[in-house]
């Protein structure tokens, strides 16, 4: 009886430790993405000209953004298969000089019609002017992609930043939405993670318990019938 009690305590204790450990690991490392800037697809959208050296997409955004790592642009293929190559780059200006932070060449064959195309790059902190360029040297009238413009004639796009969950919680706390202190927001988040992990561990434990092969009866009791 005492053994069973000790064993149960040990199992529950290990479960709790496991829940806490996984919670803390996820809290510290789990990446969460935020849309930090968007030119939304509001109103009637219209396509721009085919992207080429004559009509490239070039835009600059002013602002301070932390850990930016993706730019999604709503592109179109004119409902056809295109094969031209496109050039994309992100740049800023330092002392009046253009400084390229990221560049990528990609084939139009990879682009889905009327869907966001994601340019994913290493996280970068941006303060001030941040520009990007999308162009193609071999695009033609029947081979090339376009981008969608919203009712304000802006390209439809969104800028995403990915940060670990603990940073995201800090960001949530800073908004002070329900006048809760930062520590309470952290506690709510930890409680949330812990409850979900506990649920999964509980299910696994229940599964292990129910499917465990029953131990054979003690030899001294074997064959004895209960009266």
């Amino acid at each position, binding site marked *: 009886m005492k053994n069973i009690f000790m064993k149960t305590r040990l199992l529950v204790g290990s479960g709790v430790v496991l829940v806490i450990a996984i919670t803390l690991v996820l809290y510290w490392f*789990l990446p969460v993405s935020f849309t930090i800037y968007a030119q939304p697809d509001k109103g009637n959208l219209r396509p721009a000209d085919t992207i080429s050296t004559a009509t490239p997409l070039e835009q600059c955004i002013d602002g301070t953004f932390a850990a930016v790592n993706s730019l999604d642009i709503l592109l179109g293929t004119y409902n056809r298969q295109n094969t031209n190559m496109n050039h994309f780059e992100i740049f800023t200006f330092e002392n009046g000089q253009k400084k390229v932070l990221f560049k990528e060449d990609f084939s139009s064959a990879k682009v889905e019609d009327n869907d966001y195309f994601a340019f994913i790059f290493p996280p970068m902190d941006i303060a001030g002017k941040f520009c990007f360029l999308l162009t193609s040297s071999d695009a033609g009238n029947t081979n090339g992609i376009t981008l969608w413009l919203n009712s304000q004639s802006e390209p439809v796009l969104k800028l995403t930043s990915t940060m670990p969950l603990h940073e995201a919680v800090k960001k949530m706390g800073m908004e002070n939405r329900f006048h809760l202190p930062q520590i309470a927001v952290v506690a*709510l*988040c930890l*409680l*949330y993670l812990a409850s*979900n992990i506990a649920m999964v561990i*509980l299910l*696994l434990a229940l599964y292990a318990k129910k499917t465990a092969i029953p131990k054979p009866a003690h030899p001294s009791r074997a064959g004895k019938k209960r009266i």
Partner: protein
Amino acid sequence: MLLLVIFIAKELLWTYVTPPWEAPDETGHYGYVESMFYEKKFPVLGETLFSSRVMAVGPEESQKQTDKYIGGSSLNWIAQHPPLYYLLLEPFYAILPHDNVLPSIFFLRFFSVFLGCVTLYFGWKTVRILVPDQEWLQVAVIVGMAFLPMFSSISASVNNDNLVFALSAYLLYRSLKFFEKEDTANNIILGIILGLLALTKVTALPLFGGILVIETIKHVRLRKKNRNKCGSFWGHLGTVFGIAFIIAGWWYIRNYVLYQSFLPDLVTVVNRHPEILVKFPKLATFFPEVVSQSAKAGTGLYDFFITKNFLLEYFKNIWGAFGRFFFQLADWQYAIIYLITALSVAGYIRVLYLAAREKNWPTLKQFFGWKGGVIWYPFLFVSVAVTWKLYIIFQERGFLGALQGRYLFSALLPFIYILVRGIDHLLPEKWKKFFWLALACFFVINDAATLLFRIIPEFY
């Protein structure tokens, strides 16, 4: 019990993460509670206003949205809702600080979490009656309910739907428990629950029809078994619906006296009392829009199911349609949900195929589980019908006509149960436990992924 603790723990973050007024009609529900507290009377549609405290909260877009629908005024557009849920919230509201709306919303949402627990508790009791010997199926169903992202979201908002879900869950449990016997006390309790439902939300009224169908079938079955001991059918129905009328009838009579309609809404009220337009002139500019939008809208059954893909949208919204713009889950989540649904459908097809081959058709018990079909269909039918009807009303009125999956949650247990039961028909016995475990884990991960990767990025 442990599941309820876990549910409460996870819902606390949902209550925090959802911004004020982002949950469906939360402005209106909160405004209802507030106006009852200060004015000491039930709100009147077309007269009751939001306070400046309510209007001051929320993002700019929320204000614009409000501008569009109530003409820039501060009319509470949901003042026609029956009062029970708001009356229950009054004592909580009374003890909260009134100078700032924000903490008050946050704490009022806890009451919905409690109602979510009630829904789950009776869901659990019901599923234990249904499949007493299949413990893992019970677990998969109840975890599926507790971790359905849309249910998590609604259970963390100020919304009278939560009381409808809780009472419906209890109604379903009672119907099932007393399906095989006649009991006067049960009739009285059914009547009370129906009355309370009618006093909570108009969308719960069709459940009267559901109960009528269930009770009729029950009576026919009992009569077959023992004609002598079976009481009067009409006396039985009279007790149930009479008690419901005594509890809730006054509210609908009040509606008729005030608005000359038993089921009023803002547009009906404005049509009958054009003087409101003098007070709130912007509403007048909104009305021509209604007519033009109504003409454009396809609202027939054919449109609902075929041309506009509404059935698929509705199904997607049952799992998740959050915020004012009803953004949904991620594609990968829907891909897994479609797979689960396909497996379930395949399970039912398999049963029918085997039955046809062996010319041995399954009983309702084999097909749906114990007494299942009789109970489920009235509930599911009623819930889908409510959604369709509301969609038509939204379209005709020119309001944001999203197919609100949450209206299915009066039949949340039947929905999850039918889904899971279908897969049960497909799986070989030795794989069942493992699959239920995997499915339950998916439900948990799906809920967490929704909050962490959809809700938080969207709202912050």
